[in-house]
């Protein structure tokens, strides 16, 4: 997909022991990588050139990654993937809330990082009008918080769902009352961690139905369409986060 002009990546990390081998690895994967050892260095590089994507370490001396991330997404509209040592969900949420497109926890599998870079680039090229990533989905009294990946039922009870179920549900919620065939669903849901979703779509749908349908054998929200596909039979509203 990057045959002619290589994708330009700005890698910002204060640790040369990680930055150098990672830059070399990404170069081998066909990316044009520029390195910066601090937020200040990154800012001066950004004046001269515009990368396609920024890989940004959160914990850095001086200006930290979150601050630079906010600047990049607000003023430049650049896609950002955060690199961090912390694996707490709250850290992930903060990162995504200030506009990062994705989040990778150290130590990461380099192949997975590449997959995510490609996925983020695909999304940023496709979505010219950025949907507000943080807005809640609301349907039939249910709510889905896309940042916390939290599904709550009409009584406000949290219904834990797996990552795969979250992606499937989100895909359905993004296209309410539209028939989505299995290939389309798989395409929308896959992407980041392919191995998480090599089970059939049907299997995920039936799991999701067990959690949100009153009677999973005669589903009303996620309906099966004859001829191979699924349809979310509900109206979906987006609610700005914070007023849940």
């Amino acid at each position, binding site marked *: 997909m990057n045959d002619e002009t290589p994708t330009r990546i700005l890698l910002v990390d204060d640790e040369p022991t990680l930055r150098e*081998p990672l830059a070399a690895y990404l170069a081998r994967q066909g990316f044009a990588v520029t390195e910066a050892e601090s937020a200040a260095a990154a800012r001066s590089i950004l004046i001269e050139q515009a990368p396609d994507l920024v890989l940004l370490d959160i914990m850095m001396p001086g200006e930290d990654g979150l601050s630079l991330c906010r600047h990049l997404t607000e003023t430049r509209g650049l896609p950002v993937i955060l690199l961090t040592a912390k694996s707490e969900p709250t850290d992930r949420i903060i990162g995504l809330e200030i506009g990062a497109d994705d989040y990778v926890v*150290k130590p990461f599998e380099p192949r997975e990082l590449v997959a995510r870079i490609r996925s983020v680039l695909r999304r940023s090229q496709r979505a010219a009008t950025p949907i507000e990533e943080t807005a809640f989905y609301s349907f039939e009294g249910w709510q889905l918080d896309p940042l916390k990946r939290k599904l709550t039922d009409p009584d406000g009870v949290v219904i*834990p*769902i797996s990552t795969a179920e979250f992606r499937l549900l989100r895909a359905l919620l993004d296209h309410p009352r539209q028939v989505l065939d299995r290939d389309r669903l798989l395409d929308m849901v896959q992407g980041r961690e392919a191995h998480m979703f*090599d089970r059939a779509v049907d299997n995920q749908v039936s*799991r999701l139905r067990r959690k949100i349908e009153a009677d999973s054998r005669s589903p009303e929200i996620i309906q099966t369409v004859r001829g191979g596909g699924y349809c979310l039979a509900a109206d979906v509203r987006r609610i700005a986060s914070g007023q849940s």
Partner: protein
Amino acid sequence: MARLKLRLWPGSLLGQTLLALAAALLVAQSVSAMLLWRAAQGRMEQTMLNTAAFRLIGAPRFAHERSDWPRPGMDQRIEGQRRGGFERGSGAREFPMSLRVEHTMQQPIRPSETRMPDREQALRQILAAEGLNPVTVLVTARPLASDPLVRSRPRLLGRATRAYGPRANILVAAIQVRPGGEWSVARVALLPRRTGTLRPIILQTALIFVFLLTMQYLVLRRITRPLKLLTTRTEHFARTQEPSEPLGPRGPVDIRQLILAHNAMETRIAGLLDEKDVMLGAIGHDLKTPLAALRVRIESVEDDAERSKMAASIEDITRSLDDILSLARVGRASDPPERTELSALAASVVEEFEDMGEPVSLGESSRIVLPVHVTWMRRALRNLISNAVRYGKSAKVNLLRDGPEIVLRVEDTGPGIADDRIGAMLEPFTRGETSRNRDTGGAGLGLTLARAIAEQHGGRLVLINRKDAAGKIAGLGAELRLPAG
């Protein structure tokens, strides 16, 4: 019996102090009342005997027996008292003077009556002090109505009965100056032992009770109220590990110092905990960055088998590191627990394992909503399932209600754990097999972390060997037991 004792003996400082004080007061006042009462009785006795002696001595017949006789005016005084009838004195009451002294040759005591040696001795001493030493002294008591002299005077009997009541007794004191001679008999009203002296002391005791106990209650409340506040606060701190608004010093100096010391300690503990979090964050960062570098570098290893082994080792280290960091952080959850549907939680964790092709299944499960920290709960369940898969070949997850507890049970079909090792399994860095074999992975923190998470939710982690019908171990059951209410 023990329960009764418990109920009677209050547990609180206030109750115990007040009860002890009340008991001590009661004992002290009782002793004091008894002493007073005995003194009053002694005085009455003395007055009674004095009166009898006075009458006997005053009788003109003994004038020649006494060395200091005659004493002018003595007789007139007795005569003057005679008209007074029943006079109410302070101690023993005067008997009608008309019954002053009887002189008779007859034995004054009937055989059925008992003599009173103590009083005879006392009377003899009084008489001796006045110079009269009779051969015989007899003292007895008899009912007023059975005294022959009194009975012979109906009007006197009537008046005496009205004054002292129908069951009054008299003290009869008789002396015989010469052997075989004439008896002189004096009669004195024998007053019943009186309880009147107890009334003021009871009143006094009641007053002391009210005042002292009220004061004590007020003082103690100044101690117990800040203590109670301190207890509530300490419990809150122990539960959340978050310092709340500092408690203002109040109450007596000792309590103020305790509160100040507690505040200082709480601040210090909170500081240490914050420091620990910062330190753990730093450790995590400092170890994970080189691990990430290593993980990137091994991509250049040509040998695929070698590379995947390296990757697995790095994954192991990362998992252990995450367990250690989590264990240090559990209990300091930043978000409040959320009402969560546990069967969906169990299903979502089981599905993760299913998707990775692990032999994990969901057994019995029903809709149960409980406030939990979802991320932590998933973690605990994931650890139990990993253990079951690793040591027990397969895992089956059940969600059920057991009395006051909600049970998330993970059953495997492995060899179980020797009964004497079950306790040790919950300790950090313990693993099922004795060799610290890296192949089986993990730092041995999985169960410790699961237990810490269960305790964070007010519950517990229980490990039991499942027995089949023949009594043989059929596998291990690991249960997260959470309070239902």
